[in-house]
């Protein structure tokens, strides 16, 4: 039946490759898909958190800070439970990092607070003696780019089916149609349009600044602006 194949070395090699590759895919893909599913409690980023994530990347925080707690006793004592792949389901791109000049930030939201970040970003060495982290003063002056964060949300919502619920669907039956992929009932809202996204982000920012001390920041948010420090703190607090 396969004599023709045995007489054609190229076709035979191709057949061997396809057979072995298929066997490999059958082994690898189901396992990969299973472990890449979002874990219970893993939610997509809200607009402000995503804007903060973009600021995190913009300032190359991931060059010094990893977001991957490895399964060693010393790591879990310091940072909390080791990382699981399902926790990165909504990270595009993931920020695992391979070099730790500073500590891991995978679960920093569990053990640092808004006011601590506020003090720390201004003058890291003043809070942590001996810290070599430079101050990030411009975060207090620059304003957050909510529009780009919203654009990213719209993109991942339509291309990767990330379970965002549009603000206009809140409270309607349609909201029930977009549950979290982890099976929980929580809902993450995104704006219907840019203006809506900005107002959602501003509401979130108001909750953050309630715990902050800097009067300039409080005033900016009261005036409808969102300094970058607020967005990056929202992102830090979401890392749990």
């Amino acid at each position, binding site marked *: 039946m396969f*004599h023709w194949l*045995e007489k054609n070395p190229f076709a035979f090699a191709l057949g061997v490759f396809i057979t072995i590759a298929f066997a490999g895919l059958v082994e690898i893909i189901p396992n990969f898909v299973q472990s890449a599913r979002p874990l219970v409690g893993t939610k997509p980023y809200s607009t402000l958190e995503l804007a903060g994530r973009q600021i995190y990347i913009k300032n190359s925080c991931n060059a010094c800070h990893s977001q991957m707690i490895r*399964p*060693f*006793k010393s790591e*879990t*004592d*310091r940072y*909390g439970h*080791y990382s699981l792949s399902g926790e990165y389901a909504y990270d595009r791109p993931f920020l695992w990092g391979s070099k730790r000049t500073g500590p891991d930030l995978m679960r920093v939201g*569990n*053990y*640092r*607070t*808004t*006011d*601590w970040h506020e*003090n720390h970003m201004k003058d890291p060495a*003043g*809070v*942590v*003696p001996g810290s070599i982290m430079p101050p990030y003063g411009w975060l207090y002056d620059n304003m957050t780019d909510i529009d780009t964060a919203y654009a990213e949300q719209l993109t991942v919502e339509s291309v990767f089916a990330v379970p965002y619920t549009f603000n206009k669907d809140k409270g309607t039956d349609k909201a029930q149609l977009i549950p979290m992929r982890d099976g929980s009932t929580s809902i993450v809202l995104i704006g219907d349009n840019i203006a809506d996204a900005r107002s959602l982000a501003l509401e979130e920012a108001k909750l953050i600044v309630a*715990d902050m*001390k800097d009067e300039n920041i409080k005033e900016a948010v009261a005036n409808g602006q969102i300094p970058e420090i607020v967005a990056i703190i929202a992102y830090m607090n979401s890392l749990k």
Partner: protein
Amino acid sequence: MNKIYLWGIIITAAMLGFTYVSVIGSKGGFNGDIVNMLAVAGAIALVIITVFVVIKYVRQMQVDTADGELADESWDDIGEYKNPIPMGWAIIFLATLVWAMWYFTMGYPVNSYSQIGEYNEDTAAHNAKFEKEYASITGDRLIEMGESVFLAECKVCHGIAADGIDGKAANLNQRIAAKSVKHVIENGSNNMLMGSENPMPDRNGLFNMNTGALITDAEIDAVSAYVANGMNGAGGDVFASTCASCHGETGMGMEYVAPNIASFDTALVTNVLNHGMKGAIGVMPAIDRLNAKQKEAVGAYITSLSK
């Protein structure tokens, strides 16, 4: 006799001779040791068997003619006989099948390496060691442990000297600051400090029993200064008439009712570590990944600071 047998005998004799010279003829010889004799006997047998097996196959190549039935397949005009499967090969093949089934169902799943498995073993071993060496320490050793935990977990906010870094966190060298007392009186407190929802009312629920009225601004300032000063000075009368019913006359607190506000103690520190707290200065997160002994140690260390 075929020439090949002659050569076989010559080579065998030469190898046996070499064996004799190198072992028996050397200093010590067999040394009267049975193991040496067995080894030499084995060497002799190996030499003889090897030589005559080689001779058998060489002879076979010289004299054998082709017979038997050819298989239908013929690649590049090289034919192949339909031979029965050699018994040894068949046994190894079947044994491999059995081994594969064992490996698939038992060998790999039961014995395979897992990083998480190693982590679990490591953690269990560490916890057992901790239990053995540190579970029962008290006194100065407990305070030492508390200091090391403090320097690892707490100094990032409270500072190396536990002074709160210029008001960025609570100064742990004193029990409580006047600002914090005032904040709690004005806003109430429900920070799960006693392990359950047991709120302290805000100023609209705090009555001064002496005057029979709600606590006033002046009284708040007085009692805040009194508590912050280590239960000393003016304001003691306000404390006695307003706060003492829950916090006790000396401010030492009551179990399940109100925390100790006169001094730190382990129960208080453990509760804050378990539940975090939100006060005048800001929010402290729960640091609940410490184990019970470490929390106790931190309590002992912080208590020792303000003594």
